[in-house]
């Protein structure tokens, strides 16, 4: 029996990593030895400690990082009631594969941007940036799940993509807080525009998808409502919250959720690259688009990070413009966090409509407490790290300089948790499901709605609210 929810666990682990990293701001370097991937030509230079000038050998740094993450996640797994030895063994394998994917993704001929060619002694590269490691992790996970199902089963105890991404989001709040302090006006604008875009998406997405599912695909109300929320709002959490709100059987949300992950994988492999090619002149539109179009936190927020890297690389290669890192990610995260926050409110509204008008049940009353019950608690951790760093840095500009090394250290763990998220998403995506009888109708409404409407309407809304808004330039 779990002693804590996954959301609260993510908050505590994320805050602990943040606190350890934040010690750097006060001259106490607790995590500078943590391992990070570097763009490399010689394999020996693929991994190194994050702190500049650190003399810790890479192997020791790797071992230390692994042991810290193992300790944190094992403590968490114990609270969640997992089988500890199985979890530790599976986590070790996932960690090793994640680091390997990150290292491959940082190979100079894959990752290097044109400004690094001279230093690395190369003349070309795919210009995919180090974030390509996420895609490699996703593909590896997919290959294991679909070709080596026994291995996927053996890793199952540690395959927890939602937990890993929520920890990463809490940690990421700190870096975004510092960034926002640097350009406070732009940060306010991103938050306001993100809120506007989400309000629009909720009201229009859900109604259209619900209508399509009911009218054209002839789903019953019990199926259509969770399906509409899963496709249009935020995948798994929205499908579950809506299912509970309208008193649908739990299996309905489970079936919808299994499709959400599969389609999120397809989006992950397509949308960041589409954005790189067509939206490199409108980076913030691309960021909001990832938040509105890619379903589930596990896929959307890392998709923002990939898009951030890809677009900056392309903008530099094509127009010589060097945008600051992180603003595209921030736009995706802001949009997605607002979507998460509103799930509880939307589920509450649906619960009232269902119990009062559609399927009235005598004696059943819906209380406002349901909003809090469905509130994604990890958002509290994100807001805390974001607000703390924003407040700290706004107090005195000189503090921004001290805060940056701290967020760089925290970023090591954010990236590792993102990598593990991608690997796990691949591991839980069983494409054979699409061929199963009966699922075809669910998959059809999902595919038609997502590729026929959600993606393009999300792009339109993102364009309307973010066109012309640019990230600050990296130099000057």
């Amino acid at each position: 029996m779990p002693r804590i929810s996954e959301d609260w666990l993510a908050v505590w682990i994320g805050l602990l990593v943040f606190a350890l990293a934040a010690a750097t701001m006060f001259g106490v370097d607790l995590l500078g030895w943590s391992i990070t991937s570097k763009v490399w030509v010689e394999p020996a230079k693929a991994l190194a400690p994050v702190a500049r000038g650190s003399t810790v050998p890479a192997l020791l740094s790797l071992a230390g990082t692994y042991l810290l993450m193992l300790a944190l996640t094992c403590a968490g797994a114990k609270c969640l009631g997992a089988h500890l030895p199985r979890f530790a063994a599976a986590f070790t394998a996932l960690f090793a594969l994640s680091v390997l994917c990150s290292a491959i993704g940082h190979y100079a001929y894959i990752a290097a941007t044109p400004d690094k060619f001279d230093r690395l002694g190369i003349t070309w590269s795919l210009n995919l940036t180090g974030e390509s490691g996420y895609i490699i992790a996703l593909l590896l996970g997919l290959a294991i799940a679909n070709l080596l199902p026994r291995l996927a089963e053996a890793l199952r105890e540690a395959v927890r993509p939602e937990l890993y991404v929520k920890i990463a989001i809490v940690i990421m709040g700190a870096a975004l807080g510092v960034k926002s302090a640097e350009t406070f006006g732009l940060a306010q604008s991103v938050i306001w525009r993100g809120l506007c875009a989400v309000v629009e998406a909720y009201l229009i997405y859900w109604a259209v998808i619900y209508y399509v599912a009911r009218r054209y695909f002839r789903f019953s109300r019990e199926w259509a409502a969770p399906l509409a929320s899963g496709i249009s709002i935020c995948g798994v959490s929205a499908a579950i919250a809506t299912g509970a709100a309208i008193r649908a059987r739990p299996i309905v949300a489970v079936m919808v959720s299994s499709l959400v992950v599969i389609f999120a994988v397809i989006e992950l492999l397509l949308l960041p690259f589409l954005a790189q090619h067509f939206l490199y002149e409108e980076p913030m539109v691309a960021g909001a688009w990832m938040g509105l179009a890619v379903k589930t936190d596990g896929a959307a927020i890392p998709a923002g990070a990939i898009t951030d890297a890809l677009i900056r690389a392309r903008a530099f290669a094509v127009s010589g413009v060097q945008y600051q890192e992180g603003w595209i990610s921030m736009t995706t995260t802001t949009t997605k966090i607002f979507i998460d926050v509103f799930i509880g409110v939307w589920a509450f509204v649906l619960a009232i409509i269902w119990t009062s008008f559609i399927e009235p049940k005598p004696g059943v009353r819906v209380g406002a407490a349901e909003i809090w019950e469905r509130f994604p608690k990890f958002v509290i951790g994100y807001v805390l790290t974001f607000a703390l760093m924003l407040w700290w840095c706004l107090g005195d500009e000189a503090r921004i300089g001290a805060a940056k090394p701290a967020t760089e250290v925290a970023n090591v763990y954010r990236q590792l948790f993102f990598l593990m998220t991608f690997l796990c998403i691949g591991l839980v995506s069983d494409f054979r499901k699409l061929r199963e009888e009966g699922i075809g109708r669910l998959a059809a409404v999902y595919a038609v709605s997502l590729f026929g409407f959600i993606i393009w309407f999300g792009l339109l809304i993102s364009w309307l609210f973010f066109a012309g808004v640019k990230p600050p330039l990296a130099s000057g």
Partner: protein
Amino acid sequence: MQKGSERRIKDELQRMPYEPLLPVERKLILGSLLLGAVLLVLLLWTTRG
């Protein structure tokens, strides 16, 4: 047990009887779209204005 339940659900999905849209569902859909359209104009006006 779970396999059996999934099997039943797949059968249910294949033979789901059509439930016509209730007037309240139409109102929910139209109301949501209308509110979305009105807010779109308002929010764009406040954001760009």
